[in-house]
């Protein structure tokens, strides 16, 4: 851990409902109008069988969880590495959280949906040892 950074075992959970308005606004913010996010007719014909949210829309909850739990330094000096495991569908309620890794090297982080399914998972590392492997 970086000097002066708080160390706790579990990150404070952050929850958000991902509705169509949020998906549309995120498309505008990121200029990502992939039809699988914004075109119901196109999305219905894909293997996803409907609109899915941008994966990164939910990832901001991880940044918020880390900031609330560990403070500003943990956000401004961090390596976040995540995989998108399941789609987040419009209307889903997602919760971001994390747990300190057993080896003490950062935190395992995740985002779960309202069904308890993990939709995004990864890790966040801080300070000098954060180099990606």
């Amino acid at each position: 851990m970086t000097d002066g950074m708080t160390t706790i075992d579990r990150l404070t959970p952050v929850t958000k409902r991902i509705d169509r308005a949020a998906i549309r606004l995120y498309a505008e913010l990121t200029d990502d109008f992939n039809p699988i996010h914004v075109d119901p007719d196109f999305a219905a014909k894909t293997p996803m069988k409907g609109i899915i949210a941008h994966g990164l829309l939910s990832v901001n909850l991880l940044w918020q969880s880390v900031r609330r739990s560990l403070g500003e330094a943990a956000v401004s000096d961090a390596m976040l590495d995540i995989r998108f495991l399941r789609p987040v569908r419009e209307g889903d309620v997602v919760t971001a959280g994390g747990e300190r890794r057993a080896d003490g090297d950062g935190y395992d982080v995740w985002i779960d949906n309202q069904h308890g399914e993990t939709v995004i998972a990864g890790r966040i590392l801080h300070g000098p040892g954060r180099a990606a492997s």
Partner: protein
Amino acid sequence: MHLFDTLREGASFGAEELHLSDALIERWTSLYPDDPPDGRMPAGMIAVATMRAYSSLVVPRPPGNIHGSQRYEMLRRPAVGERLTTRIACAGKELKRDRRWVHFDTETVGEDGIPCFRGRMTILWAA
């Protein structure tokens, strides 16, 4: 159209500028009201800089691509009002179990030319 077969490892797609204007920050906080108004870019807005560069520069793309994974390295949070420049390049591609994966590297620098953050995005390419 950038197809899996024609994307070339190492290819650079150029640079995209982003002004961290008050209006843009207000749009962001209308979606995420809990992000702190501390005069610096909320961390999640890394995605705004990098995805805008990807969306603007890696074109045209086949419809239906899916974001598979993402790595971000935050070096500093830029100040509100700063103008950022993001460069994007193809870091490689691979075919695994009939799925086409493409990796892109991004680097965003501030007005002083010093990097603010870096990223690697992996996309399941549709065609």
